[in-house]
């Protein structure tokens, strides 16, 4: 069976940031490791959680999967179209209406205007934003804007959805709908990767988990097992 994601020995370093003239004569900063030797496989129809402390490499790993960061060494195989839901505002224009943003997000993902016009009613219905869809996004609350991006990203039917600290937002009714849609993705042999600090959400949504610590895979396995170990570690 083909896997959705295969990573072997992925190492990623950030170059030192360019510095001002005052630092010119101080010691040269070293490259900082973001990921060290990360290896894992995500089979079709599974969902994966990335957990770990701040700065452990969760977001870097998601960006590697989205083909935004290219690792220094190792092999990244991502079989299928990915859609990324990272921080809010990316791929959105705050001054445009919700409707125009749907079109824009669709075009960015490579869909034609015509195709997006067909998908738009469904997206509006799912996001429950029909009343405000023709208002600019900067008038939306954070939860509303997130609903819109989630509805759009999942409507274009990606094989792999990448979510960074995402699902916590939205009211409980929308969360249930979102959960159903993610379940549907998994049932269609697609999958998603969710980076989160919220262990309750992770347990509920994901089957497998990776615990990242300082860029390294500390533990991979069943979500309950990994989270129990992680909780024990953090409560120490």
């Amino acid at each position, binding site marked *: 069976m083909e896997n959705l994601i295969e990573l072997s020995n992925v190492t990623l370093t950030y170059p030192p940031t360019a510095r001002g003239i005052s630092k010119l004569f101080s010691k040269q900063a070293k490259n900082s490791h973001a990921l060290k030797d990360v290896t894992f496989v995500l089979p079709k129809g599974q969902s994966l959680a990335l957990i770990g402390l701040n700065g452990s490499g969760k977001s870097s790993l998601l960006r590697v999967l989205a083909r*935004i960061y290219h690792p220094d060494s190792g092999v990244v195989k991502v079989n299928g179209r990915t859609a990324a839901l990272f921080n809010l*505002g990316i791929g959105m224009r705050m001054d445009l209406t919700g409707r125009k943003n749907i079109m824009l997000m669709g075009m960015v993902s490579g869909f034609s205007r015509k195709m997006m016009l067909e998908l738009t009613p469904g997206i509006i219905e799912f996001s429950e934003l029909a009343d405000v869809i023709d208002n600019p996004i900067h008038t939306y609350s954070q939860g509303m804007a997130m609903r819109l991006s989630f509805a759009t990203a999942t409507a274009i039917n990606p094989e792999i959805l990448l979510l960074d600290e995402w699902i916590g937002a939205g009211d409980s009714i929308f969360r249930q709908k979102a959960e159903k849609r993610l379940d549907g993705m998994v049932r269609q042999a697609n999958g998603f990767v969710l980076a989160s600090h919220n262990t309750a959400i992770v347990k509920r949504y994901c089957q497998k988990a990776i615990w990242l610590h300082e860029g390294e895979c500390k533990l991979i396995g069943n979500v309950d097992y990994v989270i129990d170990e992680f909780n024990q570690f953090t409560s120490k």
Partner: protein
Amino acid sequence: MTNPFLDIYLAMKRLPLWGRLAYIDLQQTYKRSIIGLAWIVFAFSLFIAVKVLVFGSFAPGDPRLFSAWLTVGFWVYTYISFNILEGLSSFVSARSWILGTNLPLVGFALQAMARVLLRFVLHSFVVIAILFYLKWTIAPVSAWAILGFLCLMLNALWVQIALGIICSRNRDIGYLIQSIMNIMFFITPILYFDKQLGDKAWLLQYNPFTHYLAIVRDPIVMYTVPVNSWVIVGIITVVGSISALVLLALYRRKVAYWV
């Protein structure tokens, strides 16, 4: 190393997206103003009117010729200088898109180019109106200006890519180029004819903008094809394009960390 042609190809395949993003950018610049994009036309007309009025009094010979010289010259110079100034931030200003999507990097250069091109098209209405008012006639040789402009667009592409990469890594270069661009306007023959500089006219030959301007302006205003300028522009185009391709191959993957 990445294949620079792949990035260019992927970006070219999605021209409507870049055009749309550029249009939104411009609209956003003038948002909440009543006349919106018409400001671009208004500001350009005002600038030309004042310059013709003030500098026309120094210019020797036919005032019609000077007006056409200045109008076309400023029109083309604006296109060139906007491409350079936008190039300084073509990738930095797209930061959230570069970090949030895996769109081809060259696309953001095309987006910046499209913004400048939209301005140029709006300006061209003013230029056509002025030439019409001057009863300026167009000769068959003027068609060379079209070829000249296509050459400017090709140069805009490599400039946007090369400057975009360099300035995302080193922000000082951007400020340096900005200050140089302020000076360039005065040492490029726009507000005066080359020959007015007398025995210092040769200095202008060392300014590449003189030649970039000439390949578009001379066929329209002087009814000549500046062969010498074409050779110089041709050499810069080849060298510049190769440098941009090399930069893209070496650093395309680094830009996401730099912006």
